Structure formats: structure tokens, C-alpha cells
């Protein structure tokens, strides 16, 4: 037994093959959801008219190839496999082209590791407001250059190709082991980069993938399992998941809402807070469909079409009964690889028949969103901040209880307590959802009539008094103590009221300008 183990240790390992496996795991599992969402937020179609906007740009053809490769991330295992193959085969070929001696062979992995680290460092910038074909386009270019170089060398020289899947013959045991360690370290660098610089990247993209399959429960669970991470996109997608599952009034404050920097640069390479990443989704799921269309069209204008924007616009067109428009978008989507399921689902809804109407009405997502649409027309500028939750804070007439709850939660979130109290009146005499009851409790000392109107809150009032006693030593330094108290009071609105969202909470004001300049 002992001899067997010794022989395993002494056996030389095929490092290129191990590097391939490691990069495959990295690309398909660690970055798999990122690749899948990068594909959603990218655009590649098999029609030259549709790609014209990109073709005309510098390096446009390279970016188109990069985008074509990205489409393989429809199945991250496949996309990741192709990326890993290019990285591993390219590294192996690079070593051959550079005629590296065994002791320096680890150098061949440096360009691949550098590319992986750059990808990890980029985070959302892989596709958000930046060219989505660039990451795989540059990889493809490097790979092709090295492959051609290797092909020429192997054709005109007698130098044999090194082993790729079998243990190398020309390496010593020590050299082989050193290579193995370095390859593992090099692969760990991009993993660490993602974890340290963009810890939100994987949870957010995971939630987006879950949203694609309308798995709202899983979305909420993903956010809760990353509850101590405090980033706006996580909060936004968490709120959407809760809105879809009817848990907004119970679970919104289960995650930290303090918002660290995303370390993002926009298309002008200036700092960007990432609001436009999720704003269209928030407005759509809040029933503010025209605002969602506005957000999505601006994205389409500035960054060109993407599968994400086209899908959004299709659904919005169907919800607005603009069926010719929906068919236009579906025609474009049908020219994108691997999107037949989406077209098959929504195309039948664009007919003007009773069967199509039935399909539209029976779609649970559409039905739920329709329940939250504004009752009467007004203008975007008459709504108020915050943008979170579709800036639904000043709802004056709702189509449903769900719409009222969304408005109340927007007020609780933005700590607009007067607006909150005014909108609680229809709930007198009813069983209150958890956060709304807790929100009322925070105002009960200033306004004792609240407890008369909602006598069921007496028990909660006791808990609130106890909370105030317990946290009183921490009140002087709320920002410093917020994280310390989070686990004890997770999900409890008074905690959020006093300790949560301190950086972002400002007294919101109505937008002064009723109209926006810059008519095109």
C-alpha cells in the first residue's frame, strides 16, 4: 500500500492535461454563470444586416467571432470546454514555439493565466457597457496566432511536439512537481481575484440564470445564502424574486442593504454605480412597463442590441399588445443561435386570436406584472426616488394589494415614513405582513394612535422596546456597528431603520425637472 502511494507521487503527471481540466472547471463551473449571462447580454446573429453595427467598428470582425464563441455558453460546460481547450492547447503550443526547456516550461502558462486574471478582474465589465466579444475575441486571436506559429514550426523543423496527455519524458520528477504547483497557483489567482474584487459577480449572475428559468425561490435563496454581501444588484434581484413569490413584505430585510462599491467603469471608463444593470428588470417586475421599455431602449441605443434587451422588448411589446413589434424582435431573436425555445414560447402569443389571448392571460409572470401596472397615466418624472423597486414609493392608486405592498415596501426601504403611514390606512383591521407591522412599530412612539389602529402590534411593541434597549449602546456609531448586529437582527425592520442602508439613505426629493432635455 505504502509502495503504491510512493509510486503515485513518483509518477510524472501530464501538466497540459491537468491545466486543461483546471481551466475547464474554472470556465464552466466557477465562471459558468458569468459566461451564460455574458451571452445573454451579448448579441450574435447569423444575419449580416443585424451585425452591421459591429462589423463597421474597429476590430469588429474579431469581436463578432468572440461573440460567436460566447454563444456556446448557452451550455457553460460546452463554452467552458472550448475556452479551456484554447487556453490549454494554446499554452502547450506556446511552450513548443518558444522551445522552452523543462525547467522553464511553466512560463508557457503565464499568458493563459494572465488572460484568466484579466477576465476575473473585469467582472461585469466583461459585458456591461463594454464590448462582450472582446474577452473571447482576444483569446481566439492569441490562440490562432500561436497555433499558426506552431503549425509552421512543426512543418519546417524536426523538433518533436511535447507530450500533451501522457507524462513528459524530458522532465525530472522535481520539474514536473514544480510545474504542477505553479499551474495550480496560476489557476487560483483568477479565482481569488473574483472573490476579492467582485464577490457579487457569481451570486448576481447565478440569480440572473435562475431568473431566466423563472426559478424565483432559488433566486431568493441565492441572495439569502450571500446575505452578508451588500451590493445593489444582489438586493435588486432579491427584491424581484420576493415580489414574484409574494414574500416581499416578509423577507426583504433578510440580507444586508448597505452597498459596497462594485468597482465598475462605464462605457466612458468613468466610475459607474451599475444601476442600469438591473433597472430595466426592476421596473419590469414592478409593473412599470413604459419605464422598463425606456431603460431597455437606452441600453439598446448605447450598447447595441443584446439577447437580454431583445427578450425584454419582446415581452414588453406583448404586454402592450404591440404584436407587430413583438414579431419583429422575435424575428431577430430567431437568427440568434440556440434561442428557438424563447421564440416558440412567445411567438404564439403575438397572434390576434382568442387562443393567443388565452396564452397571454395564463402566463403567470405577465399576470402578476399586470396586477402592478399604474392605474392611470402620469409621467416618469412625477415618480420619485429611489430607483430601487421601480421607484414606486408614491403610489396613490393601486390595481391590487400586491401593488400597495410594493409601494409600502419601497417607502420602508427608503425610510419615507410619512408616506408609508399614509398608505397604511387601507390595512386597518387587517392582518399585517411582518415588515409592514414592524415598520408601523418604529413610528408608534411618535404616533401612539398606530397601536390603537393596529392592536395586534402590541406584542411587537414589546420586542421593539427590548430591541431599543439592546442596541442603545451601538446607536452612536451606527455605521460601525451595523455589520456586528446584522446576524442578531437579520430580517427585523427596526434594525434596518436604525442601522441599515446608511450610506444610501438620503431624504429623497422629487425630481425638480419635469422634462428632460436632449430631445434627439
Amino acid at each position, binding site marked *: 500500500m505504502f509502495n503504491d502511494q510512493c509510486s503515485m507521487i513518483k509518477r510524472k503527471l501530464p501538466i497540459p492535461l491537468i491545466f486543461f481540466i483546471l481551466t475547464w472547471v474554472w470556465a464552466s463551473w466557477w465562471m459558468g454563470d458569468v459566461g451564460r449571462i455574458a451571452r445573454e447580454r451579448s448579441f450574435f446573429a447569423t444575419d449580416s*444586416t443585424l451585425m452591421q453595427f459591429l462589423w463597421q467598428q474597429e476590430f469588429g470582425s474579431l469581436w463578432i467571432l468572440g461573440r460567436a464563441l460566447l454563444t456556446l455558453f448557452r451550455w457553460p460546460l460546452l463554452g467552458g470546454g472550448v475556452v479551456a481547450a484554447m487556453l490549454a492547447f494554446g499554452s502547450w503550443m506556446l511552450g513548443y514555439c518558444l522551445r522552452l526547456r523543462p525547467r522553464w516550461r511553466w512560463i508557457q502558462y503565464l499568458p493563459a493565466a494572465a488572460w484568466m486574471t484579466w477576465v476575473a478582474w473585469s467582472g461585469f465589465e466583461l459585458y456591461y457597457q463594454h464590448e462582450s466579444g472582446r474577452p473571447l475575441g482576444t483569446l481566439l486571436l492569441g490562440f490562432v496566432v500561436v497555433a499558426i506559429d506552431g503549425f509552421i514550426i512543426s512543418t519546417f523543423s524536426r523538433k518533436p511536439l511535447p507530450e500533451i496527455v501522457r507524462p513528459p519524458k524530458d522532465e525530472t520528477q522535481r520539474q514536473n512537481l514544480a510545474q504542477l504547483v505553479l499551474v495550480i497557483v496560476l489557476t487560483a489567482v483568477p479565482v481569488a481575484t473574483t472573490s476579492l474584487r467582485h464577490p457579487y459577480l457569481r451570486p448576481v449572475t447565478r440569480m440572473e440564470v435562475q431568473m431566466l428559468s423563472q426559478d424565483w425561490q432559488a433566486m431568493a435563496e441565492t441572495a439569502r445564502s450571500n446575505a452578508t454581501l451588500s451590493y445593489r444588484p444582489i438586493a435588486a434581484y432579491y427584491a424581484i424574486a420576493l415580489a414574484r413569490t409574494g414574500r416581499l413584505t416578509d423577507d426583504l430585510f433578510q440580507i444586508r442593504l448597505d452597498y459596497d462599491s462594485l468597482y465598475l467603469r462605464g462605457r466612458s471608463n468613468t466610475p459607474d454605480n451599475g444601476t442600469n444593470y438591473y433597472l430595466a428588470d426592476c421596473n419590469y417586475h414592478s409593473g412599470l412597463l413604459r419605464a422598463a421599455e425606456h431603460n431597455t431602449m437606452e441600453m439598446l441605443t448605447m450598447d447595441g442590441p443584446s439577447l437580454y434587451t431583445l427578450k425584454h422588448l419582446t415581452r414588453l411589446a406583448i404586454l402592450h399588445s404591440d404584436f407587430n413589434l413583438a414579431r419583429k424582435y422575435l424575428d431577430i431573436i430567431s437568427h440568434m443561435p440556440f434561442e428557438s425555445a424563447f421564440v416558440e414560447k412567445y411567438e404564439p402569443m403575438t397572434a390576434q386570436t382568442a387562443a393567443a389571448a388565452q396564452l397571454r392571460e395564463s402566463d403567470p409572470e405577465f399576470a402578476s406584472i399586470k396586477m402592478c401596472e399604474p392605474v392611470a397615466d402620469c409621467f416618469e418624472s412625477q415618480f420619485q426616488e429611489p430607483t430601487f423597486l421601480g421607484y414606486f414609493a408614491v403610489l396613490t392608486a393601486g390595481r391590487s394589494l400586491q401593488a400597495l405592498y410594493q409601494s409600502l415596501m419601497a417607502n420602508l426601504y427608503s425610510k419615507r415614513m410619512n408616506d408609508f403611514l399614509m398608505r397604511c390606512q387601507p390595512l386597518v383591521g387587517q392582518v399585517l405582513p411582518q415588515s409592514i407591522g414592524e415598520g408601523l412599530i418604529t413610528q408608534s412612539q411618535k404616533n401612539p394612535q398606530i397601536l390603537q389602529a393596529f392592536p395586534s402590534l402590541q406584542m411587537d411593541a414589546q420586542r421593539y422596546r427590548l430591541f431599543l434597549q439592546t442596541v442603545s449602546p451601538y446607536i452612536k456609531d451606527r455605521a460601525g456597528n451595523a455589520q456586528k448586529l446584522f446576524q442578531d437582527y437579520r430580517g427585523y425592520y427596526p434594525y434596518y431603520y436604525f442601522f441599515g442602508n446608511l450610506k444610501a439613505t438620503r431624504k429623497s426629493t422629487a425630481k425638480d425637472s419635469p422634462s428632460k432635455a436632449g430631445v434627439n
Partner: protein
Amino acid sequence: MKTHSIHILLLLALLLTACGPATERPATFTDTDETADISPDYGGVTVPPNIAPLTFIVRDSLADAFVVEFTAEGNSENCESDGNFIVAAKSGGLVQPDTAAWRALLQANTGKTAKITVYARSDGQWKRHRPISFRISEEPIDAYLSYRLIEPSYELYRQLGIYQRNLTTYEETPIYENNRTFDDDENHCVNCHNYQANDTRRMLFHVRSNHGGTIIIDNGEINKIGIKHDSILSAGVYPSWHPTLPLVAFSTNLTGQIFHMQHSERIEVLDEASDLLLYDAKENTVSKIFSTNKQFETFPCWAPSGDRLYYVSADVPNLPDTLAPKDRGSWMMEHYSELHYNIWSMPFDTLTRTFGEPQLEVDCAAEGKSASVPRISPDGRFLLYTVADYGQFHIWHKSADLCIRPTNQSAPHTAPEGASIALPTDSIVPPSGGERGANLNSPEAESFHSWSSNSRWIAFASRRDDGNFTRIYISYIDSSGNARKPFLLPQLDPRQNIRLLKSYNVPELTRNPIQVSTAKIRKAVLEQEQKVSKFIEK
């Protein structure tokens, strides 16, 4: 010797290609009463004799092949000398007539009706559809059409440009593009291109934001000018070149846009104030034509004779006098649907360069409607404009329809600011335009429009295809001012109409192509300093 051999081989190859089997009409077929479903729809349209081939898609999911026959009325079906020809559809039912054959058909049959007969094959059997007829006019259209391509966007812009299309071919060339690869510095808006009397020798367009100014091109000379003065509302906005003089009438507007939350329309573009200016391109001077508080004048348009200026104006008598400028926008937002614009005109003395008394041309407000973008036919006989339920930026109004009526300069109807005005008793047609423009309109918005220099054609923007992306339609206007059914601007690949995610904006017909190169214009935009025009108090 070797060269000779290559030439002979090439010649042989060419001959072999030329002798290849020509597309033929199916030998056997059955007739059907159904008309083929083609897109775009060309049934019943009138086309100019110089238009590029009408391409289309035949939509029949059951058929696997199509042959399309183009014949002219009265011609023998087999007589190719009369211009008849046959074309086989490509994959997906794409029909692209050969340009030479198309031209021969049109030139041999002006003033006649032509037919498109579609043969479709399914299960190995051919069927012949009922022919689709279209008329070939004797009058050509101006050969060039310029437009802006822009997403039907809201506030932002990118990869935006003004282009010129040769209508006799499919050639599209940029006049000016901002940036293809994103560059903050070059990411400006360009708009409001305008020409003097369908002639590109004098033209202009605006550049907004970075490198801003108005680009004036006068017989090859390019200048970037800035219209600025404390007493005017903004730089020049909607322009109209005087037909002969180096003068431009501009509106000056405080414009904003607001975004509906729950409405079939998406955006309302509204003015908080607007006046008219007169700009002298030779002297680089500007003066006010109108400066009023409770009347909003905009969209100026010279009569082809140059002795009259048309424009639209809305009375806003309820606008509170005490309203602070910053609150004006809020007030307008509350009253946007009450804004009704009428069409006015006033005489212009070309010698003294002074304007006479305004005269009401079309009283839309009396009908609860609102007019915009008046355009006089170059022969001076017809007024073409858009009418909608309210406002003046009608491309965002589903109710917007085109109207044509004879110009009417008799019986002036003048009134002081704010006074109400009765409908002109000598109005030949209702203010909403009567039946003349009926063929032009759809349930979606029809808005910006331009006359061909022979007054027989108009090109206009319409959202009829999908309610959002504007496309250009061309319509024949007969000598009585009646519009024929319009047709969609032909494209080499008709699917481009569906797949292009941009709108066609501000179509302007011209007789000649742009006289200066794109590079020269680009250099002027990016490198020239703005020459601020001198303001002249009148």
C-alpha cells in the same frame, strides 16, 4: 500567349454563364383566386419610373419554390422587348429583380399598369396567384433622399448619422456619422438636415453637445456657426432654407421630453416656449421674427415663391403670467394635451426682408386638433401637414395623419396674441385635410414629410409597420392633390425593414447628391471653431 489563353478561358466562362438556363414560367400550373402574400405590400401602389427595383418576400410556408413574372399592361406575356421578365425567388421567398430588366420594364411602360404574378410550388405542383398590379408613373421622383438613422430612442444616442440614399439604386452613403466605436468626445447628436429648394448646394444640419453648432454648407464652403444671444430661447432648431436667398428661418425652442407611464404613446416632446428667427447665412447674422410669451411658434416653412413664410403656432392663453421659469415645464406637463397648433403664414418682402401680418391658414384648434410640419409643394399649389390630437412633435402621436389641402392665401384672418379666431369661411376642405391625404395614413403615426421638386411625389416617415421603428414611404400626388397608396422605400434586401433596429428620421428629397465629402464635413464638425452669429435687433 499565356495571357491570351487566360482571356479566352475567361470569355468562355462568361459565355457559358450567359447561356445558362434562364428562369422560365412553369410549364403547367393551376390558377388560384388568391393574391400572393408579399412583403412589403406593393399592390395598387404607384411607382416613379426611376425607382430602384421593388424587392420583396413571398410569404407562403407551404411552398418550396417561387417564380415571379413582371409584365406590363397590354403586353404579350412572352414579349421580352416590352420589358417583361421573370425572376426566381431565392431562399426564404426573397425576390430581387435584376436591375437592368427592372429599368427596361419601367422605361418601356411609363404611364401604364404593371403586374407581379407569383407562381408557387408546393408538393411538386405549381399554382399561379392572382396578379398584383402597380402603376408606373410618367413623372420621376427626385433621385436622392437623405435621412437620419437613429434608434427610436429617448435621450441617448450613439452610432447616429445622416445618410443619403440614391433612389434609383440602393446605394446609401453617409453625409455625417458621429462615432462607430464609442467615443465620448464624438458622441454628439446630429439633426434637422435641410436643403434649399431640393438642391444640396445649400444645406445645413445641427450638431448638439460636443463640437456643437450648426453646419452650414454653401456651394462647397462649410461653416460651423453658433446662434446665441441672451434674448433668444435657444440655438436655432427647426430650419427652412429660403428658396432662393441665403436665408434660413429657424424656430428657437425650449424643448423637453417627458415619458408616459401608462399610455399607448411612449413620449411627449413639448415646448415650454418657442419663437421664430431669421438667419442670414451670408452675413452670419440673426434676428427675431417673433418673440411672444403665450404663443408658441415653430416649424417654419417658406413658400416656394419665397414671399411667404408658413409656420405653426399654439395659443396658450391660460399660461399664468406669474409662473416662474423653472415651474413652466411642470405647468406644461399638466396641460400638454391642451396644446393645439394652427397653421399660419405671413408675407415676406425679399427686398426689405420684413414680414407682414400673420394670416391663419388652417384652424385645427377649432376642431380640437393640432397641426405641425407645414410643407408647401414646389409648384405652390398644395399644403401638406400633419394633424394629431394635440402637440407638435407628432412622430410620437398615434393619431398623427398627413393632410393635403390647396394653399389658401385669400381672406386673411389676423388676430392679436391670445385672441380666438374663427374657422376661415373660404376653407375648401376641413382643417383635418379631407380625403386628399386619406390614402397616406394608417392607425400609427405619419409625420415628417418632403416634396419632390416636381410636386408629384412625397416621401414621409411612418410608424405603420410596427408602431415604433419609423420607415419611409413614398407616395404619388396627382395634379389635383390626391395621394395614391404609398409604398415602402425599396431595399436591396427587404428583410432589412424588419431587422434594422433604427428609425428613418426626417426624409428630405433632393435633386442632386451632396456636393462635399463626408471627410470634409467631419473635419469641419470636429475641428472648426464655432462662428457665433451677430444678433440684430429689429
